[in-house]
């Protein structure tokens, strides 16, 4: 978007073209890719809700306030190995979970299945 200078740390209220509305604090904005990285919710601890939004889908926005950088650069370092491990474990988990999701079933049926499986060990028949 031209003319829009997104400063880091600003709190924005945004409406997207898809109808989403939310507020967030800017972590970063990459012009090249036009992606706005937002942090939603209040920063309460090390975990945050992150949203990557393509700026071209912003219908409208408004600046709420300006705050300091939510990202403490000094603390930002990653361990790629552990990331990989996390991913692997998530995949494993997802694979296990996928057994529980019915294919070709309505969401209603899925809900039922989920509820039942809490108490009984349900096996999905394929």
């Amino acid at each position, binding site marked *: 978007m031209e003319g829009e200078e997104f400063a880091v740390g600003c709190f924005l209220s945004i409406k997207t073209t898809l109808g989403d509305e939310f507020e967030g604090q800017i972590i970063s904005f990459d012009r090249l890719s036009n992606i706005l990285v937002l942090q939603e919710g209040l920063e309460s601890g090390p975990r945050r809700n992150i949203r990557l939004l393509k700026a071209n889908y912003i219908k409208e926005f408004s600046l709420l306030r300006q705050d300091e950088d939510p990202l403490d650069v000094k603390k930002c370092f*990653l361990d790629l190995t552990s990331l990989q491990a*996390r991913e692997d474990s998530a995949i494993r988990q997802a694979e296990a979970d996928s057994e529980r999701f019915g294919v070709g079933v309505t969401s209603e049926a899925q809900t039922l299945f989920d509820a039942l499986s809490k108490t009984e060990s349900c096996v999905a028949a394929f």
Partner: protein
Amino acid sequence: MNIPQALLPKSSSNGFARRRGDREGGARLESKVQSGKSNQGRIQATGSLSGGKTGGYESSSRDRLVYMTTCLIGHMVEVHLKNGSIYSGIFHATDAEKDFGIVLKMARLVKDGTLQGNKAVTEFISKAPTKILIIPAKELVQVIAKDVAVTSDGFASELQHEKQQEVLIDSVISQSRHVGLERELEPWVPDEDYPQCPELENIFSGSWNRNWDQFETNQKLFGVKSTFNEELYTTKLERGPQTRELEKEAMRIAREIEGEETRDLHLAEERGLDLHDNFDIDEEMRYSSVYRGRGFDDSGYEEEEDILLDSQNIETFGDSSDSLSRGPVDLTSLQRNEGVRMSSSTSFVDEAPSSKAAIGADLNHTDFNDEAKQLASEIPSESFSVSDSESRIQDNLLGEHGGSKDAKESTEKLSPSEDPQLSNSIDSQSLLIDKLDGSDKAVPSLNSTTHAQSSSLSKVSEKPSASGDLAEGPASSKVTGETPSVNTRGQPGSSKPSNSDCVAVSSASSGPGLSPSSSMGSLSSEKSTLNPHAKEFKLNPNAKSFTPSQTSVRPPSPVSDGSFYYQTPVSPVPHMHMPVNFGIGPSFPGHQPVVFNPQVAPMQSPQAYFHPTGPQYGQPMLLGQRQVMYYQPDMQYKGRDY
């Protein structure tokens, strides 16, 4: 960077399931995907590492973007697409070099944007998750991720969390690192208005003046008629005009006892003293009743500690040296005759009382002098000593080899004669005296556990008496004329020397020679019942009731079984109750200060000994009623005999 051939013509095919493959953006990612995950990983990596490639003042923002996307790897994200579809999957990679197309793994279509209207919501049919889903940047509207760890602390906690979720190992579950912590104990405070226990305070205080009669209450509430008669269980208290005085006296004594200094941890705790000098004392040591051979608590003392023992004994028994003197004269004489006094115990054994003696001896003794085997059981001042001595003597005799062999025999003979006297104590005492007199070797010194005076009693409990005891135990009855182990009973610690000679057998050093045999031996070889070198009977204040099974403490007796055990012809083995019974002789009135806690740990051998002869107590209880008495005083009595 591996996206080199990323820009293949859209129509290029690829092996991966692609939702948007046909769309223009899809092609871009194909190559990446085709090259394998590693590429993506690498892309990501490179992306994150080399954020600066884009250059320009935007590099920092680019870097941040790359960083953020990297943070998302492995995270569950929701990707919104232009057409309204929403996919949920594990964020795998993004094209950081270009326009950030997304690759998801195990993606599921959460909302199908292509469906129109309500249909999309209610009749959403689930499909199998897509192993790998490539989303071109063009389609991408937004990526939403929740609870993303952005900073290092976030990562740390996240990893922890994940680990815990996946695999719960026992140590995590038990949180064992908390176990070692000592709890901060707080006194219990009853609820403010809990009406049901208003008298908690009253019930337990002033126990003598309770105005609550349990029997009466029981009768009232449940109609239970009680047949409780206090006198069945304890000494009959003479309540008469002097009751008050007696009570006062008793209280005084009690106070004195409780106020005594003690080195025993448990006692100290009870009395409110703090003995915890070394901090290796943990809860177990303080409150467990498991004996682990700890030195400071109730271990056997070495000879040099006889004095300490003596003092303990005095503590326990008061100065009862006199009692010793009262010893059965006959016994002594007999002993003299025989030389080896097999601690009349043997005889006693036969007769029953002897067993007591044996017991006594055992109890008492536990230390042996250096002499060979010592029956060193300290003879409690009381009668016990006698019994001990007797048994000891026997033990000694049996066990020891030193002294006069005849002693043994003599002891045996003694026994019969002694028998009636059961006052084992007396016997022992006499024995002690004998020993003291330096009688000949014949008398195996009774283990000199100092009788009463010394705390030998305490020793009894544990010391695995070395050879002597063990041997003696069984021996005792056997009267194997061993040697007159002279058990020096420590007359308040003084008779040692006298015993020494006799004590050859007594194996002074044997530690707590409880073994009855020791006692026997001692008796027989008595010179003086006080064996100065005997390992004193260590009264183990903690000792609980006699547990015959306590064999683990003592090392196996070196004494050959044969010799000692089967003295049958000589002395009825079975009567080896002695070793086992630390009981107090029948003559012991209820208040018998038998301190010998049947902790006769050294009883090990006797027990072993018993096996061959059959069940220990299956034997005809020659002792008859004495048998009963054996166990009666539960050796907790540490008091003095008044």
